[in-house]
């Protein structure tokens, strides 16, 4: 991107079943820490973009823009962005557009979700609101991804071992992430013998139900930066799977990636590590092909041959991903970018990519970050 968009402050709360913390407390913690980390005066924040999927259903709490704004003494203008599980990515894009348009110089993006106050069945119902309520009646989120997995495994003559390999790898990665919901190794056998949710997906193929928040401060002004936003993009596709051209690839992801690579002047081989949207293990398998890291027909083998972890071709989901770090849906897209910016600022990578998906692949947002100039 021609204008210099910098990430100058980041924060991620602990992810998990945080019964002692409310949605507002999670947002407050993330916002306060990101502003402190940026080293700016709170009154320098000119606008706030809030990402959240379903506080109206989970907590009967909406008007989140006002909730966020009142955390600041000067009540900056704020908006709430919802794009299902891609709310975080979409809020970041909206913030970037406002900065690139010159409307603001420094803004805050906060993503938060409080999911564990209701039962798993109620959560399943609330998350199903990301599907087409009339044309996909009776579907659940895991079932839609299970249909994709069913087609993918049959097309490429793979077994569910490849899915379990992703779960094991992401749990191993999360061991090093103090914010992760699960810091516990899993064996292939544990994953492959866990309870069936929607075959071929088992409970350990699914990301957990999580509470959490993340925030980033973005600026176009000269300031010590943690990373630079090199490019971003957004793609869309039909909500109803039956309406798609292909179910073994997500067009929304490839569209978003193409825009992001073009704007960054990069190609997939330039990316050293990526946080991809593994809400279910099958989603990572599609993502690593749709983002251009491996050809579709080789993504399974690359996963089985440890090409997506330390020592491989590219590190996928160093945070543990949604699978092990947790998936407070509105926070996820912001957390991916915050986590990667921290990685870049520590010098652990120079060029990284975040991939955030809404619904069963009908919305996708891709961000590419690089080392600050």
């Amino acid at each position, binding site marked *: 991107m021609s204008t210099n968009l910098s990430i100058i402050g980041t924060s991620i709360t602990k992810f998990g079943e945080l019964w002692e913390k409310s949605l507002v407390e999670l947002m407050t913690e993330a916002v306060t820490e990101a502003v402190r980390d940026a080293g700016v005066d709170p009154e320098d924040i000119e606008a706030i973009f809030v990402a959240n999927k379903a506080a109206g259903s989970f907590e009967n709490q909406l008007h989140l823009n006002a909730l966020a704004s009142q955390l600041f003494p000067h009540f900056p203008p704020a908006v709430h962005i919802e794009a299902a599980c891609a709310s975080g990515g979409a809020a970041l894009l909206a913030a970037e557009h406002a900065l690139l348009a010159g409307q603001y110089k420094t803004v805050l993006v906060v993503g938060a979700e409080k999911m564990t106050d209701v039962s798993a069945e109620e959560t399943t119902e609330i998350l199903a609101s990301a599907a087409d309520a009339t044309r996909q*009646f009776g579907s659940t989120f895991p079932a839609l991804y299970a249909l994709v997995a069913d087609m993918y495994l049959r097309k490429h003559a793979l077994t569910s071992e490849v899915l379990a390999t992703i779960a094991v790898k992401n749990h191993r990665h999360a061991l090093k992430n103090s914010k992760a919901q699960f810091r516990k190794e899993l064996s292939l056998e544990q994953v492959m013998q866990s309870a069936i949710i929607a075959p071929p997906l088992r409970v350990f193929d699914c990301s957990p139900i999580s509470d959490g928040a993340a925030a980033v401060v973005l600026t176009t002004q000269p300031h010590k930066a943690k990373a630079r936003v090199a490019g971003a993009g957004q793609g869309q596709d039909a909500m109803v*799977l039956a309406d798609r051209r292909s*179910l073994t690839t997500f067009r929304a992801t490839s569209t978003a990636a193409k825009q992001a690579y073009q704007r960054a002047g990069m190609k997939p081989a330039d990316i050293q590590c990526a946080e991809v949207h593994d809400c279910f293990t099958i989603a990572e398998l599609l993502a690593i092909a749709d983002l251009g890291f491996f050809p579709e027909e080789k993504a399974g083998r690359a996963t089985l041959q440890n090409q997506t972890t330390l020592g491989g071709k590219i590190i996928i989901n160093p945070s543990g991903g949604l699978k092990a770090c947790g998936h407070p849906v509105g926070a996820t897209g912001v957390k991916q970018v915050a986590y990667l910016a921290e990685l870049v600022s520590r010098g652990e990578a120079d060029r990284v990519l975040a991939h955030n998906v809404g619904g069963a692949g009908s919305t996708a947002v891709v961000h590419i970050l690089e080392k600050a100039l």
Partner: protein
Amino acid sequence: MKPAAYWRQSKTWQQWLGRTGTVIASTSIHLAPPQLAAFVPYSYVIVDFGNEKMEFMGAGQDELRVGDEVVCVLRKLCVPSDEALIPYGIKVVKKAEA
């Protein structure tokens, strides 16, 4: 399901009732929202009707597999609650059982 939403979805029944197609992707749902919990496990499939594809719940607990010939039928959509309405809608069953 609210009465008005039920009435709206009922207008699509005639588009589907009696149509036959082939299952091209299949799963079964073992964890469902509360109003569907009594049907668990139920099939959820993508059906190819030749000129178009659509997603449907399978009726009953019969497991539908890829390649099965199915037909669209009218069945209860939710377990009746204390709402007076008992919602019906389109599901699919194996053709031989219709």
